[in-house]
């Protein structure tokens, strides 16, 4: 499903044909007939907008028409109309992502040096409106067009010729920038996001070579030339605070590197900001592969940043799915280099509480692994971890996290069915179904909401439609505990299904292991049945809470 062409409704007060022609290879677009008819489209319940079967809606508002606004009232009236239209849209569409643009108001510039410029107030009024929606509504996001325009500059972004000839206010550069930004915001909704950035140290997190230049000789400071590395580190830190985890992959003597990481006064990233450190003389691709299995993150979730083209080529050759961006030749571009990586590959629609704790969670996981290496068997290990699990019916406040897991879990996912929020709500609303969630925690910390089970049909014919688990907690019998409780609730009878994908091999034998009997197998698509299941006791668990 992630590979099929998504259907996008594009609503705008300008002609968007040229924009669509730049994006139509990747997406199928619907736009209302006629010029500036988007408001009518929104308020007409039988409009194509609502019957197109869209996957997302983009509202792109241009402020060029403000040059024609004859009075402040006209401008305010226009904004008021647009607010009403967007509110109606958001009222009508509660499930699909809606991206609403900010507006660069191009008020007439013939003004004295003391006259009031309304574009600041209007621009801010609109921003506050859209920001408010994004905070209150789970499916509204900001498409910050005004920011894109500021970054490029109006002179370069707009073209009078294009406006007069085609009702398109954008220049060639402007069109490309808007297309890029639309592509990026849609990418946040529909393309998988990277999870980890593995970073080189020398000439990447600081300038120079620590082993040769020493802690006082490397370039790194909070001002002047050394600030380009300081700023790059801050970009990494900002990403880390939004759920991307960081790692080090560097050829160095451990003591030299550690001295700088812990002791340099201008280091923003310290030991505790990394989930893994490979500081050695090993081949970097081997280090990365070790990280993949250590952290349980697939190669496709990795970004590797290194200034050395030879290292990059080696890694590209050995790890073909890893993203290895070209390092900027001019290191004053490091800051924007990091921004582009964020926008293109990392920026999520929203940052949830679970995301902010990612680094901590991976670090706890490392401690658990350590514990495991000194334990003799799995039950003993689980007992040492002091595992606690809380399984209950999904609550309203948990829907967002459940939808997130449904759409991004690949490995421990028996059917890999993807549902949007509305579908999850519809399933939950039917009293014949049940959605269970599980929280796990242990002595090293809380893992949060890590598993979802969707059961369709009650009583004697309950079918497990979805069974997924965050890969962080795999291998701790959590799945056994969950089925144990749920099966007991359903009188020991359940039907399971396994649909093979490129990524869910880890759960291929799951149902066999849990005591289900395979009753059908068509090209690997298997149906299982559990009959007369007897509830077991899991003594290795410190606490099991189940609320049916």
């Amino acid at each position, binding site marked *: 499903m992630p590979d099929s062409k998504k259907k996008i409704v594009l609503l705008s007060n300008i002609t968007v044909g040229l924009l669509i*022609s730049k994006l139509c290879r990747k997406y199928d677009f619907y736009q209302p007939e006629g010029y500036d008819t988007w408001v009518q489209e929104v308020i007409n319940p039988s409009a194509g907008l609502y019957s197109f079967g869209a996957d997302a809606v983009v509202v792109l508002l241009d402020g060029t028409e403000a040059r024609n606004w004859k009075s402040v009232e006209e401008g305010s009236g226009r904004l008021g109309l647009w607010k009403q239209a967007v509110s109606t849209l958001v009222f009508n569409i509660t499930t699909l992502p809606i991206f609403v643009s900010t507006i660069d108001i191009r008020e007439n510039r013939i003004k004295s040096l003391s006259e009031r410029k309304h574009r600041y107030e209007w621009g801010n009024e609109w921003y506050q409106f859209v920001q408010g929606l994004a905070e209150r509504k789970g499916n509204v996001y900001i498409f910050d067009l005004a920011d894109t325009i500021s970054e490029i500059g109006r002179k370069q972004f707009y073209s009078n010729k294009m406006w007069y*000839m085609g009702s398109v206010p954008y220049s*060639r550069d402007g*069109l490309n920038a808007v297309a890029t930004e639309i592509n990026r915001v849609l990418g946040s909704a529909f393309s998988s996001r990277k999870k980890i950035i593995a970073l080189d140290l020398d000439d990447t997190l600081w300038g120079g070579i620590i082993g040769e230049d020493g802690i006082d000789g490397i370039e790194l400071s909070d001002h002047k030339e050394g600030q380009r590395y300081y700023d790059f580190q801050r970009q990494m830190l900002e990403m880390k605070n939004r759920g991307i985890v960081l790692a080090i992959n560097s050829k160095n003597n451990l003591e030299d590197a550690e001295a700088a990481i812990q002791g340099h006064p201008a280091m923003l990233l310290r030991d505790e900001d990394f989930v893994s450190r490979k500081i050695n003389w090993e081949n970097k691709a081997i280090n990365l592969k070790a990280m993949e299995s250590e952290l349980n993150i697939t190669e496709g979730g990795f970004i590797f940043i290194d200034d050395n083209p030879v290292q990059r080529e080696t890694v590209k050759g050995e790890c073909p799915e890893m993203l290895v961006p070209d390092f900027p030749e001019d290191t004053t571009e490091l800051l924007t280099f990091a921004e582009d990586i964020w926008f293109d590959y990392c920026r999520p629609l929203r940052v949830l509480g679970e995301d902010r704790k990612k680094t901590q969670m991976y670090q706890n996981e490392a401690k658990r692994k350590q514990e495991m290496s000194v334990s003799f068997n799995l039950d003993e290990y689980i007992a040492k971890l002091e595992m606690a699990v809380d399984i209950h019916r999904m609550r309203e406040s948990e829907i967002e996290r459940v939808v997130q897991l449904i759409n991004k879990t690949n490995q421990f996912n028996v059917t890999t069915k993807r549902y949007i929020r509305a579908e999850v709500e519809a399933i939950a609303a039917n009293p014949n179904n049940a959605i269970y969630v599980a929280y796990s925690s242990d002595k090293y910390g809380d893992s949060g909401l890590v598993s979802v089970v969707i059961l369709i049909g009650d009583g004697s014919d309950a079918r497990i439609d979805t069974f997924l688990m965050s890969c962080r907690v795999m291998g701790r019998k959590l799945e056994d505990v969950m089925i144990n409780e749920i099966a007991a609730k359903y009188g020991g009878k359940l039907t399971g299904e396994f649909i093979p994908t490129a990524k869910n091999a880890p759960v291929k034998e799951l149902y066999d292991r849990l005591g289900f009997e395979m009753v059908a197998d068509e090209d690997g698509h298997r149906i299982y049945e559990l009959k007369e299941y007897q509830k077991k006791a899991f003594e290795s668990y410190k606490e099991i809470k189940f609320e049916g």
Partner: protein
Amino acid sequence: MEQKFLDFVAEIMEVDEVSMTMSYNEGKWDSLMMLTLVMELEAEYGVSIPMENLGNVKTLADLYKLVN
């Protein structure tokens, strides 16, 4: 020079280069395409074509004259 121009136009219009001639006026030859061509040709040739001159453009040959 002319061939390079025609190849460039063919690429913009997503038409087979072989069928592209100075008198081409089929398919997607509409006002939107005209605008796209002007925009891309201005960037490619580093020129600015005044709107006044575009009113008389009937064929690719006319456009070719304008960019040179």
